[in-house]
């Protein structure tokens, strides 16, 4: 507290004194910036001298006033170009002309990269940081921003659930937590969003909370992969940090329209028996059910999927004056899913304004992004019933209450439902309003001589989300009547407000200290989250008249839920960088986080990081090696935390009872309250990361990239484990106890293979490869029996779990028995035990950890070619070593399913296995999910039309997938369990982009 007052006092004092400095003699610099190859003017290039700067106008011209007299250098930079500098001597009152030519380059080392609380030249970065700018983004029909960089960053796994705008997960360098979150921290324009997937709440896990951001508004996405880069975000940084920078206004005023239409179709569906095969199977294995079969020939999946249309329209107004810039964007996107009933619609608004004041000493920026997304979901039950429903059964039955046919006889509780009945009569939809915005003021104190090199920044941000989701199942559909639910209605309306205040000072002493220069940053951050969770659920609806608009009379009273959760994170952070002649680089950062989720004894955590870099290419002895344009060796260590777990774990909660758990006090019954076992010292999971990397560029940057090796050791993993009896309030407690390790390496290569200049053929390509090995080291050092925890619920058998957490194995390894084979066919009920004998049961004697869902290798290749007006690009992706449990094949892969009172349809896997009994835990169903996929092909044609630039393009996504996996999609979600997952879409998109 005391120290903070001191810091704030100092900041105040500095603000006060600042104007005094603006009195000295100054001059003006003006000039023009152009492309050194085409000689065309470059609009929007940033030109700076000392601490003053300007952006070039449409004609490439700029003016910088108020330049202090003396010798300095003028620097110009623009994304996609190598920066240029020229020395200049300014005499007070004079105007000097400096023209600069920039060379277009793909060399990443020269780009300016956004980092936590600042930006750095890529060449001087000593951590593992990858920035993808908008020109390198994935194209086509993309709803969720994260998909823009899918496949583009080595070591970053993006897994979506195949729905338009569907919920997705990102793993940066493998999974580093079991029971806390594993999603990276998202920071939008300096505003850190909350923890959890997409940094917010959504209508449900089927949609990505980050959908509020229109991908067209994003300028760049930077991934901070190693601890030295991420540690400045402290207790939220263990899973990596994704910095999203949105576009701001540049250059002459202009209006830009881009729009596209798309059509999507199903790539692959589960392979089920057709009507004839089903009839044969029933007749052979359970003829008693013959009489139930009707004469239809229904392909249920054909009836629930469709060719899905989509459209997208973005209008952007943007421009910049000498002291301000603005950008206004309006977006509309509407994408249907390939399953009927799925739609993701978004209306988004983006406003960005920046204003420089007081001789450019004060830079004010305001960003506001807001959207309304309206999502329709294919009701739960459609997909799995499309698999289970008998293909011999008709769709309609004019005699039934709903007009849809269902199984006539037998115990209805275990019979499949008509998926069309659910699809057409049930509804499930949600509306989400979310807005994230910030106002940032950055003051440059350099006009006051003693404070030259000092800037102060205050950033105020907010993140507001309001969700309303409604699900309605009428009381007369088979899905509801068979189990006595008799109609259900559920409305959930969570809302969340996060506020963030960050203030920091950056100081670059104008004089060298020792042989090098310093860059010091220090600051304070406060963020607070308030969420309200309200929902109401009702079953046994007396009437369907109100549908999804309200709750009629119900058989049992509706159940409301209403809770409030709040959290707070308060932080102090600092960073010192030292640079000796751009040759020797060192950086030290520390963050001190106090979180409401930490127990009283561990309220504050420290997260330090150090890194060093050596730009070998700058050494005199390298001057002869002209082929090597850049070479930098870097090494780092850092500690980061993960606090993506529930609120209030440090408090013992007193839980009340239900009406059947009271105790008798005389003649009265009392509801007992029970305090829960608690670890009052609960705290962050902690990851220590070592990273060694090499950044390189050869042949004037024609080939460039990075190679990294890392090892991450995570300890204090949160598990619920047995504790010493008597030491707590129950025999299990949730505490920080486990450890895990991720080790891997990454390779990044960008190449300008052909550089034909304007009109010629140019070709750039990028390749990345990443290998990661995950190992759970311990769950509970204090227990033997609790050293295996079963996870991974699957369909088939109540409580069946298919994966295991076991020390020495990768997280979520499949836990199965080795199937015995004879003549290449699996033998019914026979397994190879751990002792290598043949076992007739899949039990502890045979169960073993066997492969895991995470890819061991992830490879990405992007190619982009341009010739005259044409451009052609494509991306390829491969995962190797990932395994998938084909749950449809295992759950519906045995003839016993036909003996139900109403038989289930079977997976065609049964034709290969001939299994009569279920073999849920057989390794037969754990299949290699390795694949090669062409994610995207895009062809574009750019031409001038009446002085305007017009681009037409067409693209195809998920063009082909080569895989040995027999199920729906080998990228089947993060957990590798393919259980009625949403099928993947092949999307064809065409569109245009016009600038006025």
């Amino acid at each position, binding site marked *: 507290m005391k120290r903070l007052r001191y810091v704030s006092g100092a900041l105040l004092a500095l603000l006060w004194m600042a104007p005094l400095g603006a009195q000295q003699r100054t001059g003006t610099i003006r000039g023009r910036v152009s492309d050194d190859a085409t000689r065309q003017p470059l609009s929007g290039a940033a030109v700076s001298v000392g601490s003053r700067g300007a952006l070039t106008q449409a004609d490439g011209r700029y003016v910088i006033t108020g330049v202090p007299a003396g010798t300095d250098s003028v620097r110009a930079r623009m994304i996609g170009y190598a920066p240029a500098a020229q020395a200049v001597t300014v005499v007070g009152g004079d105007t000097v002309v400096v023209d600069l030519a920039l060379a277009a380059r793909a060399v990443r080392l020269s780009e300016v990269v956004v980092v936590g609380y600042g930006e750095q030249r890529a060449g001087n970065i000593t951590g593992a940081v990858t920035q993808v700018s908008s020109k390198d983004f994935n194209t086509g029909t993309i709803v969720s921003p994260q998909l823009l960089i899918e496949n583009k960053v080595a070591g970053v796994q993006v897994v979506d659930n195949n729905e338009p705008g569907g919920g997705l997960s990102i793993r940066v360098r493998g999974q580093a937590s079991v029971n806390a979150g594993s999603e990276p921290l998202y920071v939008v324009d300096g505003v850190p969003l909350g923890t959890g997937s997409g940094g917010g709440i959504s209508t449900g896990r089927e949609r990505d909370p980050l959908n509020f951001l229109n991908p067209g508004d994003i300028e760049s996405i930077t991934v901070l992969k190693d601890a030295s880069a991420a540690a400045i975000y402290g207790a939220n940084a263990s899973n990596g940090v994704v910095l999203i920078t949105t576009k701001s206004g540049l250059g002459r005023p202009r209006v830009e329209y881009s729009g596209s239409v798309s059509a999507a179709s199903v790539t692959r569906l589960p392979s089920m028996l057709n009507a004839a095969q089903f009839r044969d199977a029933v007749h052979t294995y359970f003829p008693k059910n013959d009489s139930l079969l009707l004469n239809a020939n229904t392909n249920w999946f054909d009836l629930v999927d469709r060719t899905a249309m989509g459209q997208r329209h973005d209008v952007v107004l943007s421009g910049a004056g000498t002291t301000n810039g603005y950008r206004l964007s309006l977006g509309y996107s509407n994408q249907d899913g390939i399953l009927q009933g799925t739609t993701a619609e978004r209306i988004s608004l983006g406003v960005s304004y920046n204003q420089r004041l007081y001789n450019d000493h004060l830079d004010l920026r305001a960003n506001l992004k807001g959207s309304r997304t309206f999502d329709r979901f294919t009701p739960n039950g459609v997909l799995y019933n499309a698999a289970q429903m008998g293909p011999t059964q008709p769709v309609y039955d004019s005699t039934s209450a709903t007009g849809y046919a269902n199984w006539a006889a037998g115990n209805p509780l275990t019979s499949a439902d008509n998926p069309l009945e659910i699809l057409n009569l049930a509804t499930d939809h949600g509306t989400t309003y979310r807005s994230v915005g910030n106002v940032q003021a950055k003051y440059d104190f350099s006009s006051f001589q003693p404070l030259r090199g000092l800037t102060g920044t205050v950033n*105020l941000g907010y993140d507001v989300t309001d969700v309303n989701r409604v699900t309605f199942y009428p009381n007369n559909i088979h899905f509801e009547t068979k189990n006595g639910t008799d109609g259900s209605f559920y409305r959930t309306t969570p809302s969340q407000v996060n506020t963030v205040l960050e203030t920091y000072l950056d100081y670059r002493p104008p004089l060298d200290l020792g042989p090098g220069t310093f860059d010091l940053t220090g600051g304070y951050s406060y963020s607070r989250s308030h969420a309200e969770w309200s929902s109401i659920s009702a079953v046994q609806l007396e009437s369907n008249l109100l549908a999804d608009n309200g709750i009629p009379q119900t058989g049992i009273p509706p159940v409301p839920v209403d809770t409030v959760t709040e959290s*707070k994170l308060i932080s102090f952070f600092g960073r010192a960088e030292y640079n000796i002649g751009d040759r020797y680089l060192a950086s030290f950062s520390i963050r001190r986080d106090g979180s409401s989720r930490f127990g009283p004894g561990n309220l504050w955590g420290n997260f330090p990081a150090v890194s060093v870099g050596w730009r070998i290419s700058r050494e005199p002895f390298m001057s002869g090696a002209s082929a090597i344009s850049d070479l930098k060796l870097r090494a780092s260590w850092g500690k980061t935390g993960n606090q993506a777990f529930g609120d209030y774990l440090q408090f013992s909660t007193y839980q009340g*009872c239900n009406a059947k758990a009271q105790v008798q006090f005389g003649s009265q019954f009392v509801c007992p309250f029970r305090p829960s076992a608690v670890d009052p010292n609960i705290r962050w999971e902690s990851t220590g990361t070592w990273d060694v990397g090499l950044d390189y560029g050869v042949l004037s940057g024609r080939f460039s990239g990075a190679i990294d090796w890392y090892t991450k050791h995570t300890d204090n993993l949160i598990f619920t484990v047995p*504790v010493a009896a008597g030491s707590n309030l129950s025999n299990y407690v949730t505490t920080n106890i486990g450890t895990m390790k991720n080790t891997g390496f990454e390779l990044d290569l960008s190449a300008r293979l052909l550089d034909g200049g304007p009109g010629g053929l140019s070709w750039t390509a990028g390749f990345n490869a990443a290998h990661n090995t995950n190992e759970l080291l311990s769950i509970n050092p204090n227990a*033997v029996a609790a050293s295996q925890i079963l996870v991974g619920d699957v369909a088939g058998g109540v409580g069946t779990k298919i994966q295991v957490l076991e020390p020495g194995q990768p997280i979520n390894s499949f836990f199965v028995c080795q199937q015995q084979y004879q003549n290449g066919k699996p033998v019914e009920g026979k397994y190879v035990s751990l002792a290598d004998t043949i076992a007739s049961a899949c039990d502890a004697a045979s169960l073993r950890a066997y492969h895991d869902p995470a890819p061991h290798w992830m490879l990405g290749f992007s190619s982009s070619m341009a010739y005259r007006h044409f451009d052609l690009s494509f991306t390829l992706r491969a995962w190797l070593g990932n395994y998938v449990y084909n749950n449809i094949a295992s759950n519906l892969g045995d003839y016993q399913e036909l003996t139900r009172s109403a038989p289930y349809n079977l997976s065609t896997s049964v034709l290969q296995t001939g299994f009569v009994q279920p073999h849920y835990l057989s390794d037969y169903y754990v299949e290699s999910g390795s694949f090669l996929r062409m994610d995207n092909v895009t062809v574009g044609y750019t031409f001038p039309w009446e002085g305007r630039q017009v681009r037409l393009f067409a693209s195809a996504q998920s063009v082909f997938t080569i895989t040995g996996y027999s199920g729906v999609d080998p990228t089947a979600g993060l957990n590798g369990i393919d259980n009625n997952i949403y099928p993947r879409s092949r999307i064809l998109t065409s569109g245009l982009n016009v600038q006025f």
Partner: protein
Amino acid sequence: MNTSRWKALRTAAALLVLGTAGCTDPTVAPKSTVTGANFFDDPASYQTFLAKIYAGLALSGQAGPAGQPDISGIDEGFSQYLRLYWETEELPTDEAVIAWNDIGLPEMNTQTWTASSAMVVAMYYRIFFQVGMANEFLRQTTDDKLTARGVGSQLRAQIQQYRAEARFLRALSYWHGIDLFGSIPLVTENDAIGATAPKQSTRVDIFNYVVSELNAIKGQLPAPGAATYGRATGPAADMLLAELYLNDSVYTGTANWAGALTAAQAVIGSTYMLDPNYQHLFMADNNTSPEIIFAITQDGVHTQTYGGVTFLVHASVGGSMNARNYGIDGGWYGLRLKPEAYAFFGSGDGRASSFYTSGQSVVVDTIASFSRGIAAPKFTNRTSLGDSGSNRVFVDTDFPVFRLGEAYLIYAEAQLRGGGGSRAQALTYVNLLRERAYGSTSGDITDAELTLPFILAERGRELLWEAHRRTDLIRYGLFTGGAYLWAWKGEDPHGTNSAGIATASTRDLYPLPANELIANPNLTQNPGY
């Protein structure tokens, strides 16, 4: 430069910066969850918290009949305190056998448990769950805390009584703890939660602690009466003292028969009376029995569990028995008598009148078959008026932990062993029980017949299946070893040999759970495990 603009800017900046300076406290109190921070804002909370300690004996969790269990790592129905305690006290003896093959259960029938047997492990954690609840209640109700919360004098007096009850319940579980496991940790309200693994204490130290606790609280406990039914009263504390002194020679190596006799006498001198109807003690309306000193209460509507007396009533029914005759929806085909227990009873002894022999054999040659062994549906969900309980699944029948009948037998045994008192009085007490059992004086014994072996046999008859047998046999030196063999003693529960063999004397104690030895490195395992 426009100075007013500067002023505005400075003001804005100052506000921002000052706003920052105010916030260096990251703690957030929960709002919509009940935690220790707000729980005691409601004066009723003291009673509801105390109720939890009682509930720990009667229920398995916060949602009846199952859901939100108190302890983890075992099926919730199996984890219920009374069910576990009953199994540890009855199944390894000559009285009972259970058919089921659930993990950890078969070996309870035959004294062949291991340090990982589920029932042994769960019993240990159940005991410490009770201790943990009681300790936390005591921590939360210290004078300092009550003063800080501004608790008024009337509530404060009430809380003092609650504190005494919490201490009684803790003493009860510590008694179970030293009786079953020997030397275990002694954790009290003076130990902080979650700090460190507790140190192992000794059986003697805990015995002394429990005795001193009971003597300290005896006067503060509520008085007996209908209003305090189900709660700990002064005579309940005396009864627990009597049990402790009766087994003092086992627990500490030094007998204290006089203490047992005095404590039993104190109970006998209080307001309880023998229930004229022996069967009524085990019926759905046994809450009206004048004999029960301390009961674990059950209720078909309000207090539902798959353990407790619901387990005893259902598990005792099977074979050709009509479940409706016992007020339940169906039998669970589990519990029968071992042949030795069936042989306790002479003809005319009404205490055997509930036994069901049709289709049941006397011999138990297969543990897993319900028809092998006489069924003993002593506990029933029918009332003394012949009605069924309020619920056919969950019974209304309370479990009599302490009742006056046992006080008579403790008096008699302590007298015979040299604890003072009068031999004539002892004979009178025993014959009072016999007369109730036989409905006349026909079953009375003579002075010559009043011997220690008779007392053990009489305890077997009077207190059959009331969770005393293991402790009694140990006190008589017969539980382990070869002096007294009964069916299945020491045998393989899955085998076919039911003759019974000598067992190691180390089986007088249960092992500390294997997991617990790792979780708590301070512990030393009992010998023989």
